[in-house]
């Protein structure tokens, strides 16, 4: 019983690392640009397909393709902000919600058209490898994904707190008007924020590939998880999103273990609704409007 419980917690934490990359991306865009990106899951999906095709055509290991997926997604993010999001800023809820929502539909269905609904997997030497630590089972691919996800989150934290651009981003998130008065160019900061956020989504896609199949709908689960985690961890709060994502992973895994294989999502949604009912501003407090 204790072993089962501990194993469920381990499984949840490992996948929670991936959720964290997606959630941090969502919360970063929200914090800086004040937009909820409904299409974040589709950028994870794009990262997965990039990784899949690199592995399938050129035999490149998914972990190496991080070096491709992250910069490509970064550029897509800059373009997304510059050509689309910028045009709906300050226009009210409808355009802001439905622009990224439409983008999500578009990317998902384009992927369906181009790549069909088939599941695509990449087999790596470590895909099925695992080791035991005491009675606990650790799949190597998930462990690597978790580790790299934490490293990337750490790098982001250092970026936000030590570089000029990172500080400008945090300033723009806290007081946009004052940041502008201090000579921060909001357009550039917004572009970099969306770029970095999408690069994290792309990284999540690459890290998932060794143990998770790519499909046009693959991003959906991750974006839903991210929304819950981001609300739970207070919107715009990177550390909150990280902690909440790990919690979501564990909650989902416990749901699967103790309620039933198809109950993971119910647990997650119920957590979201309960959070909204009792702590609409998130666990870390602050404005959720």
């Amino acid at each position, binding site marked *: 019983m204790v072993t089962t419980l501990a194993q469920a917690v381990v499984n949840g934490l490992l996948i929670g690392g991936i959720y964290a990359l997606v959630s941090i991306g969502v919360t970063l865009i929200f914090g800086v640009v004040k937009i*909820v990106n409904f299409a974040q899951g589709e950028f994870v999906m794009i990262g997965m397909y990039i990784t899949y095709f690199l592995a399938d055509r050129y035999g490149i290991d998914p972990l190496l393709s991080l070096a491709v997926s992250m910069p490509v997604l970064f550029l897509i993010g800059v373009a997304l902000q510059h050509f*689309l999001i910028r*045009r*709906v800023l300050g*226009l*009210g*809820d*409808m*355009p*802001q*919600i*439905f*622009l990224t*929502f*439409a*983008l999500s*539909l*578009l990317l*998902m*269905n*384009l*992927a*369906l*058209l181009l790549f*069909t*609904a088939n599941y695509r997997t990449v087999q790596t030497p470590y895909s099925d490898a695992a080791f035991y630590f005491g009675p606990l089972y650790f799949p190597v691919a998930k462990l690597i994904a978790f580790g790299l996800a934490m490293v990337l989150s750490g790098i982001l934290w250092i970026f936000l707190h030590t570089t000029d651009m990172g500080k400008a981003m945090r300033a723009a998130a806290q007081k946009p008007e004052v940041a502008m008065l201090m000579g921060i160019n909001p357009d550039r900061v917004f572009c970099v924020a969306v770029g970095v956020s999408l690069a994290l989504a792309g990284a999540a896609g690459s890290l998932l590939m060794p143990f998770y199949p790519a499909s*046009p709908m693959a991003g959906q689960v991750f974006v*839903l998880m991210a*929304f*819950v985690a981001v*609300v739970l961890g207070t919107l715009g709060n990177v550390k909150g999103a990280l902690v909440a994502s790990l919690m979501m992973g564990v909650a989902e895994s416990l749901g699967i273990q103790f309620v039933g294989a*198809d*109950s993971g*999502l*119910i647990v997650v*949604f*119920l957590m*979201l*609704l309960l959070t*909204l*009912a009792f702590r*609409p501003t998130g666990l870390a407090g602050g404005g*959720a*409007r």
Partner: protein
Amino acid sequence: MRRLRIPGVLWLGLLGAVLLALPLVVTSRFAIDIFIRVLLFSFIGVAWNLIGGYAKQLSLGHAAYFGLGAYTSTILQIRFGISPWIGMFAGGAVAMLASLPIGALCFRLRGPYFAIATIATAQVLMLLFLKFRDFAWGAEGTTIPNLGNAPLMMQFDAKAAYYYIPLGLLAIGLAITYRIERSWMGYYLVAIGEDEDAAEAIGVNALRIKRDIYLISAFLTALAGTFYVQYIYFIDPQTAFSFNISVEAALVSIVGGIGTLWGPVIGTVLLEATSALLQSWLGSSLGGIQLTVYSLILIAVILWRPTGLLGVLKDAYARIVHNSALAKKATLDG
């Protein structure tokens, strides 16, 4: 010079007559199927528009009420032999009941959080109905028993007969919207949609108004759900609580003209016509093409015409009237 003006009522009468006569003239089953889809999704759009368009509470979870309506009437019919005509309104009542706690939860949130919370409620209902194997057939769903021509059980031999149900629903939905638009409630809704805090500051009880309009919207959406399963003779959680229903309800209103009486109808006509054309050109082999095109249209509307197609038509009409007025003035002056 007085221009001869045709009153709006006459136009409406004409439109009604054409729509009533349509299935007598056009007998192709394919065409009637498209008409039914257009009327049904117009109606769902009209129902969504009450809460999403006028009050700007951008729900992405109306499938919750569609599904509850569908399941209530089906369960009543199959388990208790109750006619879907009664089940339809029972479904509406169930949807209204469900909208109270859902609304109480979601209306505490604004903008994107409201949208996300409504997605979650519809998904939770779908996941629950997947588990309800004893009284709701679980994931496999069930077919509706075919009784032949049984008008009292909402089943007809002639496909054309089905056409009149969504037509009637749409007429009712439009009439309700028209009434609300011109009542104090309509003005309160628009005030809430423009700026909820300002509306509250001048004494609008926003929570109560939102709750009331949500009740009506949920009720109407549930009626559509009952009709839909009767029409396709099948129900399962994936169909009844389909995310696509929630999406299309919002899409048709936004593309047509959000918060306007005829917006959802115009939006549905455009989207369904596009979809029918695509289907006849490409066949149904290309999965995803329909939503690809829908989302492109949506992006175009958001970027260039946030008032929707109705705004485009109104501008064009104004330009024509303006131009002819100018021309008339020129001839008079000349």
